[in-house]
């Protein structure tokens, strides 16, 4: 990751900006939505994503120590991804531990019973941080 940040520093103009946004591991919810109706299916364990977050923070700290980037601002906010069907939920969710297959199959049956417009979603907090490459 440090090599990637070194490359970002290289390709940015002096005074250019890096935006890093990523989901926060805690407080991630699995839900079914149908119109205004929300059916809570439980929370997702974010433990699988923690090592990646620790590595990213370490790389960013090194980049700042090297003088490549200066941290300027951050914000956290709720965000979501949703799908029409349970089996569409892809490997991008590898940072969370999904419920057991039997629970997902039950969720799929609920989703199908609600008809068109029903969706399954994960709702998570995101943190967005702005860094700047120092001007010359």
């Amino acid at each position, binding site marked *: *990751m440090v*090599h*990637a*940040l070194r*490359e*970002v520093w*290289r*390709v*940015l*103009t*002096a005074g*250019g*900006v*890096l*935006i*890093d*946004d*990523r*989901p926060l591991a805690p407080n991630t919810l699995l839900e079914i939505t149908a119109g205004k109706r929300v059916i809570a299916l439980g929370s997702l364990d974010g433990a699988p994503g923690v090592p990646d977050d620790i590595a*990213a923070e370490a*790389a*960013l700290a090194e980049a700042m120590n090297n003088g490549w980037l200066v941290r300027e*601002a951050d*914000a956290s*906010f*709720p*965000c*979501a*991804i*949703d*799908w*029409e*069907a349970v089996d*569409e939920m*892809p490997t*991008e969710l590898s940072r969370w531990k999904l419920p057991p297959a039997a629970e997902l199959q039950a969720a799929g049956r609920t989703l199908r019973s609600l008809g068109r417009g029903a*969706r399954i979603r994960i709702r998570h907090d*995101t943190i*967005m941080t*702005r860094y700047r490459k120092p001007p010359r």
Partner: protein
Amino acid sequence: MARRNDPQNARMRHLDSMIDLVRKVVIDIGAGDGEMTWRYASRAARVIGVDPGPVATFTPGAAARRRRNVDFVRGRAEALPFDDGRFDVAIFSWSL
């Protein structure tokens, strides 16, 4: 639409509060299917999405497809295939 990334557009709203992309040249590192790349292109002068895997599998709406300010390039974040100082903004979205 099978998958919707951020259907409430929260990330773009917060991105707008962090930086004005108008007239900026942007690199989207780890662009994935390119869905967010197209959204950045609605603001920026030019956006290049970079990803080591198949990119641009996302099909944007007709209005977005008429834009000529988006390109996708296969590449790794550790060896970006661009000259020094080419971009005003770099974005890692779920990719650092």
